[in-house]
């Protein structure tokens, strides 16, 4: 897969400074294990999976992840983060083919 799409979701929708909110990242990715065979040609489909993920908030890395092919197709990863001022949340994924995908979301705390 040449291009993946990343969706960032923050729950709840409205939050203020100091709140601990749920952040979900959904990536469109085939997560091929390299073990499956193409049913038509019988050839092995090469491995293609997300290797690592990095989460940055206002330029500061707060979570990094090592990921293997054992994760399901189109991985959804959820964790928590503390809201600490307005700014941007950036997610960077790198897959086994070397593709780097970035996505960001504006953080706008109310009050």
């Amino acid at each position, binding site marked *: 897969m040449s291009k993946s799409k990343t969706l960032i979701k923050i729950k709840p929708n409205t939050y203020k400074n100091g709140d601990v909110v749920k952040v979900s990242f959904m990536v469109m990715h085939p997560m091929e294990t390299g*073990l499956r065979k193409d049913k038509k040609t019988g050839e092995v489909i090469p*491995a293609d999976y997300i290797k690592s993920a990095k989460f940055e908030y206002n330029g500061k890395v707060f979570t990094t*992840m*090592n990921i293997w092919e*054992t*994760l399901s*197709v189109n991985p*959804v990863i959820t*964790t928590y983060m503390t809201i*600490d001022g307005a700014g941007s949340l950036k997610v960077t994924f790198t897959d086994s083919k070397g593709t780097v995908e970035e996505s960001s979301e504006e953080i706008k705390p109310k009050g």
Partner: protein
Amino acid sequence: MKRRDFLKNLSLSAATVAVIPTMSFAADDKPKASNALAYKDALAAITGGKTPEPSEKVSLKVPEIAENGAVVPVTVEIDYPMTDSDYVKAIHIFAAKNGNSRCIDAHLSPANGKAMLSTRVKLGETQEVIALAELSNGNFLIASQSVKVTIGGCG
């Protein structure tokens, strides 16, 4: 070449063609990913020989019966403070019997506010799913649950 010889050769070559695919198929019976690491080795690599302590503080939510092994939701939550001096450093999820037992390692920091990780994994067969939490004081907490898989998710 006489007609008889030609037919003889033809039937011989046909026989070899018929045999080879079945042989190669048998060899591929249990393929393994190039980066496969068994559960015991993966655990030892992280803990460095320390014995993780089974703890109720680690809550692992996995369905007991998974109809589809390709998409099994896993949620790990650790009842532990996330302060600058005392926090959960990392959460690891393993699937004990998968070719590659490692699923995900999440390296957290106090900025997370809460130690929680949720995702979806593939399970090849009925097996145990294990959650390991690495604390900032160097200790390890562990929890596991077996999941019955009715349709395999790998291959």
